[in-house]
């Protein structure tokens, strides 16, 4: 019994310290054609709990979003968010784990 309690406690502590699986979301955005427009979308995305870094590739019309899990942003939510920002969702892709090809995207930080 004592062993079981210790084992469970260790298990709980371990799970609490394990980061949630990182999800990367690639949004294709139509209508985004200047730097000033991109910032409005980035601000909307950063308001969402669980969203980390947001980076935009203006020429490709793409925004790469780091999220702390699968449930942070659904395709429907992304479509609504972009409509609220005045733009149109073209595509929605999710990628698990570390993102690839991130160097091709500009930083969303100022």
């Amino acid at each position, binding site marked *: 019994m004592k062993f079981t309690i210790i084992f469970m406690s260790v298990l709980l502590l371990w799970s609490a310290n394990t980061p949630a699986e990182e999800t990367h979301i690639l949004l294709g955005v139509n*209508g985004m054609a200047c730097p000033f427009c991109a910032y409005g979308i980035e601000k909307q995305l950063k308001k969402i709990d669980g969203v980390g870094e947001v980076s935009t590739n203006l*020429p490709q019309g793409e925004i790469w979003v780091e999220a702390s899990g699968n449930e942070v942003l659904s395709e429907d939510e992304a479509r609504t968010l972009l409509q609220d920002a005045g733009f149109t969702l073209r595509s929605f892709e999710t990628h698990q784990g570390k993102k690839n090809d991130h160097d091709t995207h*500009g930083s969303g930080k100022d």
Partner: protein
Amino acid sequence: MFFQSARNQLTFLVFLLLAGPGSVLAAPITFNTALPVARGEFLNREQLVLKRSGKDPSGLNSDIKANALVSVLAYGISGKLTIFGVLPYLDNELRFTMPGVGSARRSSRGFGDASVFMRYTLHQNDQQGSTLRLAVFGGVKVPTGNDTQSDAFGPLPIPLQSGSGSWDGFGGLVTTWQTLNFQLDAQLCYAFKTEANNFQAGNEARLDGSVQYRLLPRELKSGVPAFVYAVLETNLIQRGKNTISGRTDPNSGGTSIFLAPGIQYVTRRYILEAAVQFPIVQNLNGQSIKNDYIARTGFRWNF
């Protein structure tokens, strides 16, 4: 007698240089745009406007300096609906020569009339790297400015006052086609004037156009680089004649066309811009004073 006549004449000469709600809209540089403001977000624009005029056919040698710092706050109610508030701070000066008296100066300073208007996107066609939009807008100019200022000569003429005293309405259509390489904007605006202090300005119709061409970076790579645009705008302005105490003033109203080269530096968070409007046509009625130029510079800020 002469002074009264000269004052009335100057009243209407000055009016042409100080009126016009179209000049206080948000963007491109001399008028508005159909591009969106995100829901729940604010945009601020500050623009310094310097108007100069010295071409006076009346023989009074009038010289007018009309400076304004125009503050615009835009708030996105939704992706399609935006509300704008505009508040100018005005510094107006009129210099003229009176026979037998010499040169004289009249001036005013203070907050002008505030404007509130809304813009709604009627049509939106978004593609990768481009957007085409058509929006309708309408609003009201509220007589918040002081219209009771006076000097040693007596009460200032209404157009020289910081405020007009009148409630005026305006509305129109604006369209924007923006791509990664260039942007085209066009606006049709009509302003209805009402009477106050026995003075009613003529209604105003205007047609504006703007082309912005990306000079830098010459080649777009990844990320969000800052853009430098060369800007060329034109403004066709038709004003009706003013009335004072119910009588039409023959020295007021007319048609003007301006051409405005400019430059914009556009980043993710702010825009710096400057343009100078040069009159290429001033077909004004009677002895209306003519513009030399209107210089504009300022910034927009997304916060």
